[in-house]
Every structure is written in structure tokens, then in C-alpha cells.
């Protein structure tokens, strides 16, 4: 795994806080993986929150690409949709959707791609297509979107997904995208990293969570990489920036 996506646990501990939510912990943990110059392919929701938080705190030079064609977007508030006007007006360059996928993502210009999912397996494969059988699904999900090619073309993939045995499954009902480039999975309970063996391993637990909590919320026999760190909780500065961003 390239160094610059290793979770950064060097945040000064004296500024840590305790009044944060699991959601905030996820955004902060994801933001810490981004650095000045990191080119991120960002979707709406947590990835966008994390990337914008990084841009407002330690990584003002992080480059945000939205699949709507906005390269280097610098929104002042969190976009509600991937096509918000502010993403376009603050972008360094605005291009077509075919171009963003071909010249920018497929060409290997993206360092970090974020994905969410309904299901994830131990290999980092994800499902955002259907729960149940494809031809008569229990739940029809929105579908692939950009996931297959983000998963194939971003140098590193980060998955953000709340922990539960329904989401962290032994086997995805449908493989929407493959796990070959998944490096980190950030959940509301901890952080998983891709191990040498190609299987996700628990690397840190968020404050207040135990390894057993995480294993209980995981639908497969989760490997644990000793020693499991405790995720550094959000600092006061991170929390303030995050809450500013969300309130804007």
C-alpha cells in the first residue's frame, strides 16, 4: 500500500475530543488519508465530506474530481448533488462526462477513488446493484454508476461503509466492482486495511469500540492485524471544520 493512504495516527492527542458521532469519526478518518496533491474521484455523501474536510484542514491542495466533469472543484459548502452549480463554477476545469471517464479516470490520473456500497466482502468486492437474485431481486439498488471503473482505474480505492453483518457479508449477492485496488475500508467502528494476502484486516478500532464489537458486526471471520490501534479521535480543529462544512 502506498504510504500516502496509510491512516495517519500522528494527530496530536492533546487536542482530541470526545463529543463526536460515529459518522463524524468516519469522515475524519477518511479525510486523514488525503494529502496535498492527492487527486480524488469523489461522490456525493461521505466521500465528498471527507475530501472537502481534508481541503479545509491539513490538505488545502487536495484535488477533487466529481464525475459530473468538475476537476479541481472547491465548493464553499457541501454539494447536495454531484451536479451542483458551485462544483462547476469553482472548478479549475469543467469537462464532459465522457471525457472525465476516459481522459481522467481511465487514463490513471486519479490517486484515490471513493466507493460506497450495500455489501462488501473480505476481498473488497462490493455490491451496489441488487440484494437477492438479479432477475427477481429482493431490493433493486441504484446500480453501478462509476464504481466498476473507479475500482479498476483509481490507484487506491477507499470504501466508506457503516458496519453491520448485512453489509459486511461472506459473499456479495452481486459483484458490482472488484476489490483489487481497495486499500482501506472505513466504518463507523474502525478501519480495515487490505492485507498482503488480499483479505481485509482490522487495523484500528474507533475509541469506545472493541475488536469483538467489530468482529460481531462483520459477516465473515475478520482477520485482525495485531496490534490493533485505537483510531485517533477527531481533534477539536477537525470537528470544528467538519461542523462548519456541514452547517454551511
Amino acid at each position: 500500500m502506498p504510504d500516502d493512504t496509510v491512516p495517519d495516527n500522528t494527530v496530536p492527542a492533546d487536542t482530541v475530543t470526545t463529543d463526536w458521532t460515529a459518522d463524524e469519526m468516519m469522515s475524519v478518518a477518511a479525510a486523514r488519508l488525503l494529502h496535498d496533491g492527492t487527486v480524488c474521484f469523489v461522490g456525493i455523501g461521505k466521500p465528498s465530506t471527507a475530501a472537502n474536510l481534508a481541503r479545509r484542514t491539513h490538505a488545502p491542495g487536495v484535488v477533487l474530481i466529481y464525475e459530473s466533469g468538475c476537476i479541481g472543484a472547491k465548493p464553499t459548502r457541501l454539494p447536495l448533488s454531484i451536479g451542483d452549480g458551485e462544483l462547476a463554477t469553482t472548478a479549475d476545469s469543467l469537462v464532459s462526462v465522457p471525457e472525465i471517464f476516459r481522459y481522467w479516470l481511465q487514463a490513471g490520473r486519479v490517486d484515490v477513488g471513493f466507493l460506497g456500497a450495500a455489501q462488501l466482502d473480505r476481498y473488497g468486492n462490493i455490491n451496489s446493484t441488487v440484494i437477492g437474485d438479479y432477475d427477481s431481486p429482493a431490493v433493486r439498488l441504484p446500480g453501478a454508476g462509476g464504481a466498476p471503473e473507479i475500482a479498476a482505474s483509481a490507484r487506491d480505492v477507499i470504501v466508506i461503509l457503516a458496519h453491520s453483518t448485512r453489509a459486511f457479508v461472506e459473499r456479495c449477492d452481486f459483484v458490482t466492482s472488484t476489490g483489487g485496488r481497495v486499500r482501506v475500508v472505513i466504518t463507523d467502528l474502525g478501519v480495515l486495511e487490505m492485507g498482503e494476502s488480499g483479505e481485509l484486516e482490522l487495523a484500528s478500532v474507533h475509541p469506545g469500540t472493541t475488536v469483538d464489537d467489530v468482529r460481531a458486526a462483520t459477516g465473515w471471520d475478520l482477520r485482525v492485524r495485531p496490534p490493533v490501534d485505537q483510531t485517533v479521535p477527531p481533534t477539536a480543529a477537525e470537528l470544528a471544520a467538519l461542523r462548519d462544512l456541514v452547517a454551511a
Partner: protein
Amino acid sequence: MSTTPLLPLADAVAAHVHDGDTVALEGFTHLIPHAAGHEIIRQSRRDLTLVRMTPDVVYDQLIGVGCAARLVFSWGGNPGVGSLHRFRDAVEHGWPRPLAIEEHSHAGMAARYVAGASGLPFGMLRGYLGTDLVDHTPSIRTVTCPFTGEELAAVPALRPDVTIIHAQQADRSGNVQLWGIAGVQKEAVLAAERAIVTVEEVVDELTPRPDAVVLPSWVVSAVSVVPDGAHPSYAAGYSERDNDFYSAWDPIARDRAAFTSWIDRHVRGTSDHAGLLAALRTEEALADA
């Protein structure tokens, strides 16, 4: 001088959208041609194959009333809100009729439109590898690079019978200019047999603008003036996205009766987009009172 007819939207849809057609209403969050979708509902088109990268609320409506036999797409959701419940109901329960689906990734759909706009029979990309989409979508095949031997994904060109988009402006000859997030609309128009463009306004002259796409009149079949014709989507420089509407759509679409009643009142019960917008404004005023 070749000019594109300037038609009322109802006439443009009557002339260019036929039962059984493959129809693409494209727009990427920005500039979604909602008004045209509503007009298709008013005219009760049937058996359409609907094409779009990101089917959202207007496709939920078209599917919910039973206009569509088939959907070709890559992501079907209510952005920032959740599922498309009419789409789900059609796929999961066949209501009001079964909906066949042909499912791709965004990159694959974009490659298909580009191939269509380029007059090529197929597009290729480095994609789909290892995904289950390959097993369920017969229109994903492979092609081998004759130089490196690499195997790439191949997808057939999209060639809609008609593409409909919304733009900010047309001039009196029917040249069209849109600006801001342009999505895949240029490709969707150029890939199609016919194209309808709804515009915010007609101007004497198109002033060149940053980040603009200009479509010459001779690739456009009809232009219809429909102010705020993208609502609840938006047109940069003319309107803001109505995020509340997207949120409000969720409970309406969850319930078959609520949905049908909404369509009857707002779409079938109005004669055009101005009428629909007026009905929405009246409700808002009542809710605020």
C-alpha cells in the same frame, strides 16, 4: 438558411416521439428535461425504451405511469435522497408493467454514446473486468488490441430514435447553446436520429460563453421554449436546483396511489409545464400559509 422549427413542446413531442421509440432524455443533475418527460406522459406514449446514464425522478415518473418497456442505464436513484421507488416497483414487482433492464457502468454508457455520436458501431473501454455485469448484460463483449493483445470491454453504440435535452438558449435559427455541467448531452444529441431541445429562452444572438456547448441548428429537429423546463433540476444562470422537491418526491413515489394521484393532478391535470409549475407553487403557498 436552414432553420430548425420552433414548436410548442406538445407539437415537438407529438412529431418526434412515437410509441416503441428508443428515447434518451439526458442531463447530469443539471439541465434534466423534466418538462419534456411530462409531455410524454400527457401524450401517453407506450412501449418506450428509455435510455439514460442517471435515470432520476422524471424516469421514475415515466416508468411509474407505464410508458416504458425497457430501461438502458447505469445508475438509477434519487440523488442525495435514495431509491427510485417506481423504478424499484417495476423491477421488483412488475408494476404497472414489467420493465426490462439493460445495465451498464457510467463509463460504458458514455462510451456507447460517444460511439453513436462518432458513427462507430461500438465503443471500448478498460472496464467491467471481474464484475457480474458481464454475466447479466449481453451488450458487454470484448475486443482484443491488435497491437498489445490486451482484452478490453466493448459496448455497442447507442443510437436513440430521439434524444431530448434542455438548454439555456437558442437563437432564431435554432442554434442551441448550453453551459455549465454539460454531461453527455452533446453526444446523446449527435448519436440520435432526431433531437428535441427545450430552452429557457430564444435570443437574437448567442453570446459565446465559457464552458459552453453549441449545437448548430442542423443537428436539432425541434426547439421548444419552456422556461424552467428542467425543474426540479436547474439551468445555470436561470434557476436553482429545487432540492426540496427531490426530498418530497420520496414519500410520493413510495406509494402507488400517492404517485398516481400526483401524476393525475400535476401532469395529466395540467396542459403544459407552466400549468404544472403553477400547481406546485399553489401547493407551496398553501403549505406555507
